């Protein structure tokens, strides 16, 4: 299995948040980060803490909270501490209404040659149709973005596709961080509903992150490697 050259995760939730409470001091007081991390967050460039937006970062995560959106982005080496932090935050705000959760993973995969680089794009987005409109002797064609939605069940049962409460979007693009590399991203999207659950939506989110984030990481890494391998086979 092909290994990535860069790998990271982001956890995103949509709902109604109170950005002002999720401060570095609050994380430290609730034992989710240590004193050094809290100091690093307080000193971070671009620190904002307000009713409308909270933004700060340490050497292993960056956080951005808006009134309708929560984003936690990993920095540096990804580790389960990232999951614990996200899950811990949501378990501390159990009455926050949350409508959707995204477990995101992204990786850059270097390919050995320019031909291989183009082969990935040609396999995922064949150029036959485009070449008839834009003749290759006058134009060059390249794939910029391909997104495939994956959800359980047969395609005819899932129309329109947007109605599924749980699906994955897998996106392939040229990497803009690593030269001659392919960027892949997995967005595991879940609509959150409190119906038929004794838990609040935030508690559900905390539980999903705690129990499924790591498995999702393994799947993402496996699927990314498989996509690149199949495209180059």
């Amino acid at each position, binding site marked *: 299995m092909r290994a990535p050259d860069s790998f990271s995760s982001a956890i995103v939730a949509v709902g109604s948040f109170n950005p002002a409470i999720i401060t570095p001091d609050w994380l430290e007081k609730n034992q989710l980060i240590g004193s050094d991390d809290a100091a690093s967050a307080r000193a971070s460039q671009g620190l904002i803490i307000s009713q409308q937006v909270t933004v700060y970062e340490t050497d292993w995560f960056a956080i951005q909270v808006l009134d309708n959106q929560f984003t936690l982005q990993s920095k540096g080496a*990804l580790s389960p501490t990232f999951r614990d932090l996200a899950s811990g935050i949501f378990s501390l705000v159990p009455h926050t209404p949350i409508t959707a959760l995204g477990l995101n993973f992204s990786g850059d995969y270097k390919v050995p040659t320019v031909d291989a680089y183009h082969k990935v794009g040609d396999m995922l987005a064949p150029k036959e149709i485009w070449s008839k409109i834009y003749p290759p002797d006058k134009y060059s064609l390249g794939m910029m973005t391909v997104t495939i939605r994956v959800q359980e069940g047969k395609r005819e049962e899932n129309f329109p596709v947007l109605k599924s409460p749980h699906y994955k979007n897998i996106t392939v693009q040229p990497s803009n961080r690593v030269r001659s590399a392919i960027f892949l991203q997995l967005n595991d999207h879940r609509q959150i509903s409190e119906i038929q659950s004794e838990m609040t939506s935030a508690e559900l989110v905390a539980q999903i992150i705690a129990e499924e984030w790591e498995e999702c990481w393994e799947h993402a890494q496996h699927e990314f490697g498989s996509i690149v391998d199949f495209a180059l086979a």
Partner: protein
Amino acid sequence: MPRDINQNFDRQFSKTGVYLQRDTLERSGRYVSSLQNSLKQPEGSGAISDDVNATIAPSVGRLAPSIEALGASIKQHVIRDADVQTVPLQVWEGRVVSVDLDNQTMEVFLSSTLGGYEAHTGDIDLQWVSEQDKDLVVPGAVFYLTLFKRSKRGTVENSQELRFRRQPNWTKHQLALISKGADALLAKMGTPRSL
């Protein structure tokens, strides 16, 4: 759990003092060597890289509340040090078995969460635990040891990071849920609570 750790693993200390299995060290060396080769760019790749820069516009102002859009925009928006790329090679979940303050070491049990390696025990010097985590070093405490590759402007190095697990205190609501679950279990067993 392995019967005898010394039969299963040759423990060696890396530069940072956290012990590594012998095969880890060998793999790391091979990895660096293969990376150095792959860093030699084929001719003409510069043009491709230039094209790539325009693929995702940096998000400006408030992000759209659509999760699909978020993943891509976050990557561009939040990470400032875009020159640094890291990838975990092995991730171990460790549990502190005992702490030897006289020798400043902790005996740990490690199980692999990424990499599929065999679980084993070993000793780690307390000097490799960060100051902020020192008070968490007690028997039973969980930590994560991540071995990773870091690339920065053409320089590739292997490194490792040790962080202790942090979880918030139990909330009243969580305690109430646990108590409710315990009551339900007790009722099923038909045992009076007073016992």
